[in-house]
């Protein structure tokens, strides 16, 4: 077969992707970049306005707030979910009796439809009748009686000081995907490494720190990047649980404000500028994480 016919066949097979890519990725990326420099309400044609959208965003307190909320949330939610998944994977990797059942239990929440789990968590976190506070109140009563403090069960979704913490807490429920990845990686660590370390007199902590973590670091790195990218786009749960960023804009997440500008206020140009800033933030965050963690990621001895 000659080269050009191979090339044609290749293109033929990837043609659905090329069409989809042009229509739904390349064109939209360029169009939204253009719109970000326009005043555009859909009803009339886009009017170029230079940097006006970006200037407006720079002076928009709610925009700054949404960016800040999202960054803070990401800084807490990403490590919290990774750590939870890692603890669960470590426990499952002890290969105790009933492991398959435990694995199912820990995994199941991660496939519950996000809207369904959000509605469920609204109810779990209800200030007066929610299960969490029902369980928390007797504990706080004891603490208050003993220590003479005045702790009260928080209004998780109504008190701006607690809403982000509530959403972080909820996110640790659905960590099944990362947990499975970590569990697989833990299973791939060669037993000989542990045996050698034991002969050298290493204890459990040293083995975990010097063998296990380096050996699973590529998977940790992969999940870190993926969850960073998705958390910066946090939307579904916030839309359902804390509409419009209530209370007090504490949960006005980036994607929430962007959606409102685009589809509620029909300010497509402004929203496009927001989208592009988000893109830049995501790329920047990824590069920073990549640079700062690369030297901790161990790619040797993979046997792949």
């Amino acid at each position, binding site marked *: 077969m000659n*080269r050009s016919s*191979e*090339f044609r*066949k*290749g*293109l033929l*097979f*990837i043609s*659905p*992707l090329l*069409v*989809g*890519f042009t*229509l*739904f*990725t390349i*064109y*939209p*990326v360029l*169009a939204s970049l253009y719109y970000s420099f326009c005043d555009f309400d859909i009803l009339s044609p886009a009017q170029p306005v230079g940097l006006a959208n970006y200037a407006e965003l720079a002076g928009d307190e709610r925009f700054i707030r949404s960016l800040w909320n999202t960054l803070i949330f990401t800084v807490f939610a990403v490590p919290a979910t990774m750590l939870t998944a890692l603890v669960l994977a470590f*426990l*499952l990797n*002890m290969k*105790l009796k*009933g492991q398959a*059942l435990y694995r199912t*239990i820990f*995994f*199941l929440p991660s*496939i*519950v*439809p*996000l*809207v*369904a789990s959000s*509605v*469920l968590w*609204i*109810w779990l976190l209800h200030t007066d*009748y929610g299960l969490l506070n*029902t369980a928390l109140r007797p504990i706080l009563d004891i603490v208050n009686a003993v220590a003479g403090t005045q702790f009260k069960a928080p209004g998780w979704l109504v008190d701006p000081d607690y809403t982000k913490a509530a959403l972080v807490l909820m996110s640790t*429920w659905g960590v099944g*995907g990362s947990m*499975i*990845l970590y569990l*697989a*990686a833990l299973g791939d660590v060669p037993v000989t490494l542990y045996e050698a370390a034991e002969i050298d007199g290493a204890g459990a902590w040293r083995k975990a720190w010097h063998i296990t973590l380096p050996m699973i670091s*590529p998977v940790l790195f992969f999940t870190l990047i993926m969850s960073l*990218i998705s958390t*910066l*786009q946090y939307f*579904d749960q916030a*839309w*359902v649980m804390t509409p419009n960023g209530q209370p007090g804009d504490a949960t006005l997440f980036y994607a929430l404000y*962007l959606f409102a500008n685009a*589809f509620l206020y029909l300010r497509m140009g402004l*929203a496009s500028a927001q*989208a592009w800033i988000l*893109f830049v933030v*995501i790329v920047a965050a990824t590069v920073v994480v990549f640079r700062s963690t690369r030297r901790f990621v161990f790619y040797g001895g993979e046997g792949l």
Partner: protein
Amino acid sequence: MKKGSRAKTILGHAALILLSFVYVTPFAWLVTTSLQPDKERSVVPPPFIPAPEAAAAALEKETGLRLAYEPTLQHYARGLTRVPVLLFFRNTTLVAVLVVIGTILSSSFVAYGFSILRWRGRDAIFFAMLATMMLPRQVTMIPAFLIWRSLGLVDTFAPLVVPAYLGSPFFIFLFRQFFLTIPKDLIEAARMDGAGELRIWARIVMPLSTPAIAVVGLFSFLGGWNDFLGPLIYLADQSRYTLSLGLAMFSTQYGSEYGQLMAVATLMTVPIVIIFFFAQKTFIQGIKTSGMKM
């Protein structure tokens, strides 16, 4: 040494049991609320065990605590009449099934071009495709909306379904990883016999790829079933709502009807849980493949 490992085992079991309890409780709370008469809900702590009223009363007498309640289906009945849940169910199933068919056909077809065929520029385009997975959906969603709007297809299922027929990077990646493990000799032998590439894709590669098809089918079904942003942008008329959108709207309108909300949420979750129990291995395999390096 032996003693230490026994203590470790006991601690491990204790931690696993405690955490299992924590992870199961939200599910139990979901189902219990959906079955519980409203008047029971003001009891603190709320009764958790569904039981006949006589048994619940006896238990209350015995312990002094209202631990059990007589279950009722009234929330399901009322939830189903208040919003057309069965219609949403049908819509969601239709969308999810069409997405699955499109994703399996198009993504395996494209993956064939990225793995079995060799041609100049192949890997460059493949990695360019993977790189776009970093692109946030927000960047493309506005122009994509305008395209569908100019085609007059907003408020139809087309914007939710058609893109699945044009290949999606993640599933192309999954298929490609699998196709790379198919022995080259098999393909070469078929070519020697005069089979065209289209025929090799349909008659040799696809039948050998049932595990990959299962993984892609499962995850694209979940994606279609759970998608919220897509329906939120594109669907306007309530008769076309999916479950995600319907439940979200129900939650904003009847936010305090927790019994009914939990009933609808349960109905939305049950099919996924059933599928999970039938396809647990496929799930786990799929997740492992997604974390694999190239």
